[in-house]
């Protein structure tokens, strides 16, 4: 489902390491990217339009050349500061970002979702508040409304763990679960001979690398990660 090497080349390019000014070695990866707002009159920028018609994960990222582009060349460019930061709570990397327009104002959530930063259609069912995107909990249809479990946040705001500045971030819990599922699936397929590789358990740096590549792939289903 995901390939290594060239398919991820765009996702892993352009990152630099930045230390906290007072704590060398305590740092994060940083990249600046530029996106635009989609201008498509048939798809108003609200969260409903981001839902796919099925609940499938959309994994084919190739642009369909026959589709009309949904941004125009004179649409203003928005600046995205992307950070890959180690989450000390969840002990995995997490993607933090800020997005500003050309006057330096941060974008509110509804405009954020309709930029080219986010894949279309959005690969999962979500609800949005003014300050977060939420995933419904499993089996919520089975409970009484007052007993219903609360939705999980997928994207919300928080302090950058190193810089302390406010950013949007994807909850590491969700991405980690997805990465683990994919890695387990690949291991099974290798054991069954359906994937190249000896099926030996990876360790150390090789394991970390595989994990990180899978993480980039998972994020790419939601966020445009190519630089």
């Amino acid at each position, binding site marked *: 489902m995901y390939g290594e090497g060239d398919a991820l080349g765009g996702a892993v390019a352009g990152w630099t390491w930045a230390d906290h000014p007072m704590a060398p070695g305590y740092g994060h990866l940083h990249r600046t990217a530029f996106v635009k707002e989609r201008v498509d009159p048939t798809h108003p920028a609200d969260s409903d339009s981001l839902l796919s018609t099925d609940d499938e994960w959309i994994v084919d990222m190739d642009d369909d050349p026959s589709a009309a582009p949904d941004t125009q060349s004179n649409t203003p460019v928005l600046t995205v500061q992307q950070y890959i930061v180690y989450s000390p709570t969840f002990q995995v990397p997490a993607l933090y970002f800020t997005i500003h327009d050309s006057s330096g*104002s941060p974008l509110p959530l509804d405009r954020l979702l309709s930029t080219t930063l986010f894949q279309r259609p959005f690969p999962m069912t979500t609800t949005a508040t003014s300050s977060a995107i939420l995933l419904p909990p499993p089996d919520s249809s089975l409970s009484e409304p007052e007993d219903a479990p609360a939705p999980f946040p997928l994207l919300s705001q928080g302090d950058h763990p190193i810089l302390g500045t*406010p950013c949007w971030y994807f909850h590491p819990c969700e991405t980690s679960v997805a990465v683990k599922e994919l890695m387990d699936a690949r291991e099974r397929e290798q054991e069954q001979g359906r994937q190249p590789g000896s099926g030996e358990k990876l360790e150390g740096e090789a394991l970390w690398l595989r994990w990180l590549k899978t993480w980039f792939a998972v994020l790419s289903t939601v966020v445009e990660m190519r630089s």
Partner: protein
Amino acid sequence: MSHRYTTRPATHNHKEFQPTSLSSNPRHSNPNPASTSLFRRLVWEGTVPLEIHVDPKELPANSDRGLDSYFIQAPRVSYLPLLIPDIRKNLVDLILDETAIASVKEDDWWFEELDTGNVMKWHWPIGLLFDHHTISVSTQSSQSGVLSTPAAPAPLRLTLHFVSPPTDKLIIQPSAETCKQAFMGQVKEADFLRWGNTKRVTGLRKQEQDGLWDGVKDHNFDDFWRVASKIFPMPTAFVPILLHDNALPSPSPSHINNFNSTQSQIQSQARPASTDPASGQHQDRDGAYNVRSIPVRVYLPSGGPVLQDLVSPVAEEGRESKPNTLRNFLHTQLPLLFPSPPTSPLAYALVQGVLAPPESEMAWLGACLAGADGWVNICVGVGRPRI
């Protein structure tokens, strides 16, 4: 509402409030539920003095400029947005004339420290804002060797602005709703750190989850702890046990794929033995010494990073386990400021505004001195404390 803030006597007096491991034997820690409740109530009732000034440049022409500041004795466990109704009623509405009152938008309100210009993060508990200010002030005007007598602390002077919140320093849309979301996020992170999953929080019904925030909002100890007692650990008795040769796990790639491996390793190494297996199992499952990590953050004076790392409730001493102490933890995090005994430390640690004794057990701090969101916020100041 305003009476509660303005007339409550200051309880911020570190002489009355000395957290210690209450047993004389440092290995067998506090199993007494009454004292746990006592310390949790002391934390809940703790307050700090705030002096709120309105920015005179933002006052429209017809404002009453005679009334320029408002003192609040604010709860440590509360948050700035929760003070806004009080400040509105007892300061802002008295200063502004009727047209101005009708047009003022609380969504754009923000606070900065009057003396330094530091923007106040509204998603930090008020107690943390105050302690962070204390350690930052002591660093700027360091006069070493002088330990001041305990006196009422000077209020934290804040300027209230009505417009143009600095969006590079504050999370946008600082409404009570985003404050609640940020709070619940921290509650879940604390739950995750303790147990490797957030089942205790997500297992609460929505009504109960809302009850946590409502307890903070209404400042009601009983309402808050009715729910919080389901997710906070209890400091049950700690019994030292013999450790195996590879006692405490260190992070390794295999842990990426199994969040529970660290937790189960620590549990299997350090679960206290119990004479009654049935009741012991049930108690210990939520015991403070069974968590895989205590939710702790270390704050350094202005400009320094916020440090967060795994904090095990137990440490090794030879072949036995013993409770992890504050001195041991600070030594691992900041070895130059907190060298091994007998060298004296070059810094001090504030927890809930109190100079925490070095022998305080981390597990006990996590169970009894945490904030409402479950986090133990340790503010480290350089030099000798001036509180």
